[in-house]
């Protein structure tokens, strides 16, 4: 259930927990003491017995206590597409999913390419008092890929990084100038890696499956082409580049070798691309129509390997709410994208349950890694850090059910999936905003 947080949290001791802090490698019994909006103490000495008068004690019942999750790629729909998602509905879904910070895409209407829109989004999110929202600024005005947006002023007003979101920056000269300009202020540019002139018109991964279904394909090469071009532009400009939601073997190989050469490149993967393959489309299931498209099983396994060996730096939900009118259509006409806030932790924990990662490693992709990349204060269990916490049971099983999602749109590619890992409490700035039954 969602809990309306009280305004003055005071001091709270979360005791009898398994502490997990990926930033320090801490994995052991103990508790966390919060004072107001900050973490006051972390460790085995924080117990119910040691709590002073006036400290509220919350017994975690031996469950895991970790930093709140940071989801670095979320589309919020507001302003402009409030019928698909609002800051309020996304914030409730995020709280349920254990996400205490979201970084939202600029492809809104109006686009986040102006200081006033950055401030609008930040202020509206603060009014919800739930998950923190950090906006991306657009790289180009109107995300049109033509003129550089006011990156410096946008950063000063609160944009944490820059991307044109769903759109790749197609023109190499524009991308070069944007990267060069961004480097002036040491700003991070994130790119949706897809060569639009090759992907245009495609609706799923190009190959046998698309041919059988009679659907036009998006060649896998469209992804690696854009990544390789951008790697060359990193060489040219020296700018930091982050590549979003990689989906193919070739993309993994290109990024792995660029990193080995010491280039300042990072990337993330989204749960659908390490948990599903194009078979999920089955009989024209539009909830599995994603961008980038679901690929082959060999690609999925390559993404898992890339997560294990550190080629992938972060995991992000790529939450893209689409209403029924956009999804209840013939496959080719349906919108791309899937919701993911409420399934981010559980699907990521499949990597732990399947023996690919330790619990601590899995959490790192959702906490300290994105925090470091975007220079956020959150994502750590340490004194003086924001009291953004989750309590969760990594083993508790549940079934993803579209109609039970809190997101305003229900288009989950994981609908019907049995998963493990349930968030039982979400704390933001010292206030509990979600408790599971």
């Amino acid at each position, binding site marked *: 259930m969602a809990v309306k947080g009280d305004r003055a949290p005071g001091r709270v001791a979360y005791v009898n927990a398994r502490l997990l802090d990926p930033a320090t490698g801490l994995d052991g019994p103990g508790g966390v003491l919060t004072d107001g909006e900050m973490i006051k103490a972390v460790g085995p000495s924080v117990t119910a017995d040691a709590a002073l008068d006036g400290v509220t004690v919350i017994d975690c019942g031996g469950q895991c206590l970790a930093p709140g999750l940071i989801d670095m790629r979320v589309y919020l729909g507001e302003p402009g597409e409030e019928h698909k998602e609002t800051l309020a509905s996304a914030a409730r879904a995020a709280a349920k999913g254990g996400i205490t910070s979201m970084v939202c895409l600029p492809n809104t209407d109006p686009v986040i390419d102006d200081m006033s829109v950055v401030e609008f989004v930040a202020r509206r999110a603060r009014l919800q008092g739930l998950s923190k929202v950090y906006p991306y600024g657009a790289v180009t005005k109107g995300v049109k890929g033509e003129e550089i947006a006011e990156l410096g*002023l946008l950063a000063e007003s609160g944009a944490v990084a820059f991307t044109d979101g769903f759109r790749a920056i197609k023109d190499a000269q524009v991308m070069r100038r944007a990267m060069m300009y961004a480097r002036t202020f040491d700003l991070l540019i994130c790119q949706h890696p897809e060569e639009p002139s090759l992907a245009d018109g495609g609706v799923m991964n190009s190959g046998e499956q698309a041919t059988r279904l009679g659907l036009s394909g998006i060649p896998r090469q469209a992804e690696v082409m854009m990544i390789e071009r951008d790697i060359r532009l990193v060489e040219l400009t020296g700018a930091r580049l982050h590549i979003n939601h990689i989906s193919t073997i070739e993309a993994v190989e290109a990024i792995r070798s660029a990193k080995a050469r010491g280039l300042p490149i990072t990337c993330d993967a989204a749960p659908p691309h390490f948990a599903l393959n194009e078979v999920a489309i089955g009989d024209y299931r539009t909830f599995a129509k994603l961008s980038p498209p679901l690929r082959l099983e060999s690609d999925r396994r390559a993404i898992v390997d890339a997560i294990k060996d550190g080629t992938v730096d972060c995991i992000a939900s790529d939450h893209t709410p689409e209403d029924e009118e956009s999804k209840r259509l013939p496959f080719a006409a349906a919108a791309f994208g899937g919701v993911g806030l409420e399934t981010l932790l559980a699907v990521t924990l499949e990597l732990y349950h399947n023996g690919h990662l330790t619990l601590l490693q899995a959490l790192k992709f959702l906490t300290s890694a994105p925090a470091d990349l975007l220079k956020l204060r959150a994502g750590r269990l340490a004194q003086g850090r924001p009291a953004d916490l989750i309590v969760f049971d990594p083993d508790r099983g549940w079934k993803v059910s579209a109609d039970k999602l809190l997101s305003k749109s229900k288009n989950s590619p994981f609908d019907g999936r049995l998963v493990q890992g349930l968030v039982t409490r979400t704390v933001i700035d010292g206030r509990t905003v979600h408790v599971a039954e």
Partner: protein
Amino acid sequence: MNGDTEPFGFPHRHLLGIEGLNPLEITALLDRAESYVEQNRQADKKRDVLGGRTLINLFYEDSTRTRTSFELAGKRLGSDVINMSVATSSVKKGETLIDTAMTLNAMHPDVLVIRHPDSGSAKLLSEKVNCAVINAGDGAHEHPTQALLDALTIRRRIGKIQGLRIAICGDILHSRVARSNIHLLTTMGARVRLIAPRTLIPTGIEHMGVEVFYDMREGLQDCDIVMMLRLQKERMHGNYFPSVREYFHFFGLDYAKLEGAKPDALIMHPGPMNRGVEIDSEVADDFGRSAIHEQVEMGVAVRMAVLEILTANLDNPQPRNL
């Protein structure tokens, strides 16, 4: 130095750029220019040094101050001065630069002053004519008389160039003024810093003996002189910065950004200024610190010296072709 045959210590036929000049040659030009400053402040500004000589101003780009400055310099020294601008010349009818040069050459001018949007055009012209050629700005390459007038301004204000810390700020990429100043100031022993967004810093410029900064406050720290450049929008194909308000916010010179510079730091600008773009009006009009009008005054003196010296060298049997 061949002091006997070159009375001014400047053994060159043309002035195509600052690159390659040595400190003695630069000093020779500045010393001679110095002598004209006082003359230009008298009621009688004329001296018959170039009597009978012909100077042609050949301007392929619009210019007010540089063309006027050369015209005045020529006239004050008694030369005949012809101004040719693109709008009125046969260039409009499709004549190439070399054909125009040959045509003009046939009229036996003594000095050709050329401004052209293409880098290297002054050099090309100099290879085709018998007279002295002065580069008044070629593309993004050089503008040597601007650097000389800046140097004269600095020398008169501070007494020296060597050891000064000088920041050149703004559109370095498209600026011939920046390149000429980098050559001159580093040759004379100043420590030169460049400050601009990365999109306006040309590749490899750090190999020209300068330090590059991307933050105004950091770059202006302890500077003796701040040289602002004009944003050359006419040369910007594509976008190098997002907006004028963002440019001014981060790279426009105002008192706040000037705080870290030396308290008496000199403010310079080659003009014409874009107020509120690269420079705040308050700073530009600061009587005590801004040398902007003095720069214009020095321009005439410097051009008189260059005209006098190059014309004298015309009679020299073996001037170096620089």
